[in-house]
């Protein structure tokens, strides 16, 4: 198993049970009482309606999740697409939504424990805590403590718990069906149809589980396949379970028996199967509410981490504990919120607060999907695509926001206040510190910015069709990069596209930077003038552009795609293109999927006179050969080929064949019969002026960028090094899915 596989160890079933387990607790065990009291047997319709609304968002969440399988899920997608203002709203809503939901699950847990354990209520001054709340406080304290010290056993029970629950509920439904009396379902709507939507708002908290799945997306095996299955599957499964169990519940007994009954399923089970039935359902209720709370507490720490990574909350919150390896502060702070919510809330307030905050996120999530689709940045490559776009996300966004309007006015007021708080949080805290820019605003700025500073579509090439992109960041390296890029462009009768990428600090808007170039980069005109001069010297067509960007490194890949580049020649070093942001996995994805052939120059003063090309065959060494041939033709370089072999004879044979097939027969051939390739390269490179190394494996570039490249030779040789990695061929799977 590779490390990558070990890091992602949630299989399809595990991912599915996170969703199902989290949802069942609320919908079956806690909410039927209050919901039936409001709408009677129509409650089944409310649950199906809630399921349908959740499903629309589940489709969007699946697409976004396969494109960005990152910790933090829903919050992350919204922040990424809509920027830190909406990111602040979504982050806080996601975090608090999970805290409210956890408080609600624990309250339900308290009601179930109260069935068999009599606990006295507590009076503290004006506060009177009923028994259920007292138990809920202890329960919440316990689960927060467990996650604070990080017992992994809690999570392992998840699959067993969920399978047990589904079996218990299936048995309940089956036995109930034989004892059903459909007449008890009439009248279906004893209170009319007007309470239907408010009730849907109340019970919507039963459909939050799939957000917990997206929060841990980084841990899911093969997210492209498993994430959509888990997210969509869990919503469908629980909707069916809810509808069946509720219809059976109300077909077995008269509506008043269920209405306002905190543990309705237990009483009905007692009627159906005596004390054993009651005990089973009681046990189910404890398991379901506890596992829901546990998953939500774990998911909330992911939201905190993602917010911290984007600079929306302080890094202090995400400190990892040395002994427990848990995000202990995040767990503790979330735990504190949960306890406060339990003390001051009742079941319905907690449920509706959880519902409203999540509806807010769901609405924004659908908007985020529309933005990602419309802007379509090159890194957005979802494996799963929402059906019937744009209809699905548009309807998803509208119904999610609309449902908020049917919830208690006081809760709506609270949520408005909450949004105001999050917006103020953005302006007074996150705005200065946020490390990200939304895809939406980047796209808007590109549209607004003048034609001189950006390009919208790839301009029509006036040279040949072959295009060499040369991203320039550091004025000292312009000549060297243009020398290489120019030669390649010329050899292919193509055009060199010199792009000066100006890094702009995150807090500065790009349009401001474009208007005040002198503040950011005095040399932008110079840099491009020099690039043009160099191109003219070589007699190759050239285009120049300036791009202002917050993320210079990522911009290289963007530009390679927008300009439809065949080859990219870029520098690498401390001063080039900044170092990428902290999201290394995003860089990984970028650099893993190369849009063009990449040549990366570690520039120690370019001198083309003596080139060394180590080769062991393979596509990346083909690229090295092509470059060496071009340089030899253009600058008269002397090329030496180096091959490390078992013995002299096979080595010579290989090199002869390789040189012939790569049109390098005039090159000097060196065969080394020592096992260590690196030291051979090092020794031979001593009298070379340029070393051209083909990537020996996929993702070389990404490892180089992250500084985790295990090729010391790059640092040990004294000449310049050119790394060559060929364009990624799209895998069969990718082609299949478009």
């Amino acid at each position, binding site marked *: 198993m590779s490390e990558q596989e070990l890091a992602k160890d*949630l299989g399809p079933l595990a991912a599915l049970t*996170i969703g199902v387990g989290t949802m069942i607790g609320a919908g079956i065990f806690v909410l039927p009482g209050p919901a039936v009291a409001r709408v009677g047997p129509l409650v089944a319709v409310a649950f199906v309606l809630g399921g349908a609304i959740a499903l629309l968002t589940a489709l969007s969440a699946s697409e976004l999740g396969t494109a960005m399988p990152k910790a933090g899920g829903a919050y992350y997608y919204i922040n990424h697409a809509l920027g830190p203002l909406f990111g602040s709203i979504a982050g806080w809503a996601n975090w608090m939504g999970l805290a409210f939901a956890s408080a609600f699950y624990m309250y339900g847990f308290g009601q179930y424990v109260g069935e068999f354990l009599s606990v006295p209520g507590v009076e503290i001054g004006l506060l009177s805590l009923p028994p259920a709340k007292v138990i809920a406080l202890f329960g919440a304290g316990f689960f927060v403590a467990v996650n604070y010290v990080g017992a*992994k056993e809690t999570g392992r029970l998840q699959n067993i718990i969920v399978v047990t629950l589904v079996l218990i509920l299936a048995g309940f439904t089956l036995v109930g069906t034989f004892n059903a009396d459909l007449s008890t379902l009439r009248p279906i709507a004893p209170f009319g149809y007007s309470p239907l939507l408010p009730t849907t708002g109340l019970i919507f908290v039963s459909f939050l589980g799939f957000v917990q799945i997206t929060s*841990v997306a980084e841990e899911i095996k093969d997210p492209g396949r498993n994430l959509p299955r888990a997210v969509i599957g869990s919503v469908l499964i629980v909707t069916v379970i809810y509808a069946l169990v509720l219809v059976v519940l109300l077909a077995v007994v008269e509506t008043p028996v269920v209405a306002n009954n905190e543990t309705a399923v237990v009483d009905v089970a007692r009627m159906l199967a005596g004390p054993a039935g009651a005990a089973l359902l009681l046990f189910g209720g404890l398991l379901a509410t506890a596992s829901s709370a546990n998953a939500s507490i774990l*998911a909330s720490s992911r939201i905190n981490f993602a917010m911290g990574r984007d600079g929306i909350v302080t890094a202090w919150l995400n400190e990892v504990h040395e*002994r427990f390896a*848990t995000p202990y502060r995040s767990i503790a702070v979330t735990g504190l919120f949960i306890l406060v919510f339990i003390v001051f809330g009742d079941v319905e307030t907690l449920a509706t607060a959880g519902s409203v905050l999540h509806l807010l996120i769901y609405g924004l999530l659908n908007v985020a999907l529309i933005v990602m689709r419309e802007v379509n940045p090159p890194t957005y490559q979802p494996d799963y695509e929402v059906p019937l776009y744009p209809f699905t996300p548009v309807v998803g966004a509208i119904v999610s926001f609309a449902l908020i309007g049917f919830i208690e006015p006081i809760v709506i007021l609270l949520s408005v206040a909450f949004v105001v708080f999050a917006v103020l949080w953005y302006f007074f805290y996150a705005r200065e510190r946020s490390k990200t820019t939304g895809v939406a605003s980047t796209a808007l700025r590109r549209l607004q910015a003048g034609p001189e500073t950006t390009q919208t579509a790839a301009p029509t090439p006036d040279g040949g069709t072959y295009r060499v992109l040369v991203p320039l960041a550091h004025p000292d390296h312009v000549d060297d990069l243009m020398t290489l890029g120019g030669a390649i462009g010329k050899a292919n009768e193509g055009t060199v596209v010199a792009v000066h990428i100006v890094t702009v600090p995150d807090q500065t808007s790009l349009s401001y930077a474009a208007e005040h170039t002198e503040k950011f980069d005095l040399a932008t005109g110079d840099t491009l003038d020099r690039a043009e001069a160099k191109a003219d010297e070589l007699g190759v067509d050239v285009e120049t552009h300036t791009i202002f960007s917050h993320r210079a490194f990522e911009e290289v890949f963007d530009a390679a795609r927008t300009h439809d580049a065949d080859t990219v020649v870029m520098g690498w070093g401390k001063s080039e293109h900044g170092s990428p942001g902290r999201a290394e996995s995003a860089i990984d994805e970028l650099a893993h999927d190369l849009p063009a052939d990449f040549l990366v120059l570690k520039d120690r003063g370019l001198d083309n006179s003596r080139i060394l090309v180590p080769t062991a065959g393979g596509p990346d060494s083909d690229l090295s050969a092509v470059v060496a041939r071009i340089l030899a033709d253009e600058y008269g370089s002397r090329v030496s080929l180096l091959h490390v072999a078992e013995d002299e004879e096979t080595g010579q044979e290989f090199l002869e064949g390789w040189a012939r097939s790569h049109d390098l027969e005039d090159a000097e051939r060196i065969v080394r019969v020592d096992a260590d390739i690196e030291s051979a390269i090092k020794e031979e490179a001593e009298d070379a002026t340029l070393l051209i190394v083909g990537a020996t494996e996929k993702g070389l570039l990404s490892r180089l960028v992250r500084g985790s490249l295990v090729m010391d030779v790059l640092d040990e040789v004294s000449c310049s090094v050119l790394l060559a990695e060929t364009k990624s061929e799209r895998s069969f799977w990718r082609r299949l899915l478009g």
Partner: protein
Amino acid sequence: MAESLLSRVVVPVAGPDDAAATCEVAVPHVAAAGGSLTAVYVVEKAGGAIDKASVEQREEFAEEAFEAVRSACNGADVDCSTEIVFGTDVVDAILDFGRDTDASAIVFSPRRGSRWLDLLSGNLSAKLVKQADRPVIVFPSDGEEE
């Protein structure tokens, strides 16, 4: 001549503080023996359930710990490398890594935490020593109580 126990040591680190404390006592010995050092951080996986913390979060944390290791090693001119490994059992993961890299010894310096903490986080030191298939070197920590 038998190779020195300190020629290729593996040092499990639990975090930046732990790494700094361990390196402080261990690196001088490794330097004197002319050995090299590999720091390893284990990301404990739940094995098919939600982890206790985000993987990426712990990878960042490991990087902080590795920074401490690198600065200690560079100061003493000791060759060092770092590795993040994943495993459902921390001790097994450390021992497997030692086997894969053919380490001459596993080196650590027990943190003087309370009994209470040992109980909660599982006493890994004892388990590591018990299950080891190669030499384990324990350097007394000259650190204060945490």
